[in-house]
């Protein structure tokens, strides 16, 4: 029973990571950008949801729609206002990643100044056990988390494999210069990818909001987690992001059981270190990093 609880807790945490990591991985693969500002989008989504759903008291679906719109606008804005001017200047990868970190810090502290450093959370009673004699962690929250991660993964996988947009995205990821020469609207594709990634952060933000809350200082941790998951799963591999997320989640929850809760990040970042040393292309990646 205890083992089942640990595994399930890890699975749920992993699914939340996967939801953040899938968008991160998509952008990394498609545009080659290490999108640290993904954490900023996550914060914006979480606070938008809180403002609309709790402070303004809108119905859940309406608030979620609002949060998605806000996140998509934020994601697209980062691409338009920051990344594109940098790319036009032929900035190096390091310059862009540093700027991306800068964006995250700016958004983080704007949020702190506007709303205070405590973070926001809401208790909607999702954390009640479903079965009286089942594992305590088996609740509506876990079911929703797992379902949304699986749905997002399958949806994105389908989009990439079966639609024209997906085909265009794969072409752009393979060789964006050639894709542009062949007449693909590469800029529009990049913005759509940013919007998609931002939209997929929203369920994660809402779930965190209903659980431990959305806290400004955690955004960077979450993005790093997403980076670990994306590297583990392999660049641009959607299924890899889900598998990687679950693996990291279970590893963390095992670590928390053995040691103290404060140590949970240790295992993840040790994993990153070993991974980069041994297999930088990830579990499902094919090209060398």
């Amino acid at each position, binding site marked *: 029973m205890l083992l089942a609880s640990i595994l399930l807790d890890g699975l749920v945490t992993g699914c939340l990571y996967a939801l953040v990591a899938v968008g991160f991985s998509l952008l990394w693969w498609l545009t080659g950008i290490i999108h640290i500002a993904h954490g900023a989008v996550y914060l914006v989504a979480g606070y938008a949801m809180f403002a609309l759903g709790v402070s303004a008291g809108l119905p859940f679906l309406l608030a979620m729609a609002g949060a998605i719109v806000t996140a998509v606008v934020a994601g697209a804005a980062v691409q338009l206002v920051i990344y594109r001017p940098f790319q036009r200047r032929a900035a*190096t990868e390091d310059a862009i990643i540093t*700027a991306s970190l800068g964006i995250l810090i700016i958004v983080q502290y704007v949020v702190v*100044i506007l709303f205070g450093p405590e973070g926001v959370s809401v208790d909607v009673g999702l954390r009640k056990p479903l079965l009286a004699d089942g594992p305590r962690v088996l609740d509506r929250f876990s079911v929703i988390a797992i379902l949304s991660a699986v749905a997002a993964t399958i949806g994105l996988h389908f989009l990439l494999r079966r639609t024209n947009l997906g085909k265009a995205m794969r072409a752009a990821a393979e060789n964006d210069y050639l894709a542009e020469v062949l007449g693909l609207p590469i800029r529009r594709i990049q913005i759509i990818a940013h919007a998609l990634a931002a939209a997929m952060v929203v369920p994660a933000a809402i779930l965190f909001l209903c659980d431990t809350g959305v806290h400004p200082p955690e955004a960077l941790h979450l993005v790093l987690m997403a980076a670990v998951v994306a590297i583990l799963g392999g660049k641009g591999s959607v299924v890899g992001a889900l598998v990687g997320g679950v693996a990291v989640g279970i590893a963390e929850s095992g670590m928390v059981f053995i040691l103290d809760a404060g140590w949970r990040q240790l295992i993840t970042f040790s994993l990153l*270190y070993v991974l980069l040393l041994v297999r930088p292309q990830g579990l499902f990646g094919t090209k060398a990093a």
Partner: protein
Amino acid sequence: MSIFAIVALSLNVLTGAAGIVSLATGAFFGLGAYTTAILCKAGAPSLVAQLTGVAIAAVLSAVIALPALRVRGVFLLLVTIAVQIIFTVVAQSWISVTGGDAGISRIPPYSPFGVPLRGVSFLLVCVVMVIAMYIFCRFLMSSPFGAVLRGLRDDETGCAALGKHVGAAKVTAFAVSGGGAAFAGSLYAHYTAFVDPFSFDLSVSILMFLIVVLGGAGTANGPLLGVLILTLLPEVFKFLPLPPGVAAAVRQLLYGVLLVAVMYFRPQGILSAGPVGRPMGALRT
């Protein structure tokens, strides 16, 4: 300020000369400070404690650089951020050694020659050390090793093709920079007589990186200019009527804005050292 100058000079070996962006400086700075705090409290002479800290940081820094042998810049940057966070986690959670969030207080003053140094005499020692570090960096840059590092920055493949040990040079650069930061960290611990995890978190690493990049990565004088600007800037904010919590947030916000702005407008810094005709040269990896 002179303590930060030592850190900035040592980071400049890595970021400026070799073109490797590291955001783990705060961790090594903290490592030196914590080693000093723990050993001095246990009664060790401060010079011994300081050198132990430097050695530990240098070795650890070299170990961290090992993935650099396989992966390129961006991944390495992620590793350094990860190291920084691990350091904070360990400092917060390993309570029996580090004191957790409360930190370690009442660290004895710096006494390298048996005489405790305080106030002006401590400041003098720090200034002398900045000058020593400056000369050391100048010497390092003009040595064959410095040339290899600059070659690494401008054209890694070409450098390797010339038969230089690219990996070894990177690992050495990491070790030097980590050791230098720990050296300064030790002075910091003596100066404030108090260490806690929050004095050495990611924002410190970002501040150090900004100092180096703003002043001009790869130049000998750039980091000193960067220190001057970025340590005086927060003082200006003290005159603004802001509540304490907001003032700290505003300062962080300013660092974020500066990161983006410097990267966009002048990635080579105020005192440029990039190759002619290639403005992004200072940060190439």
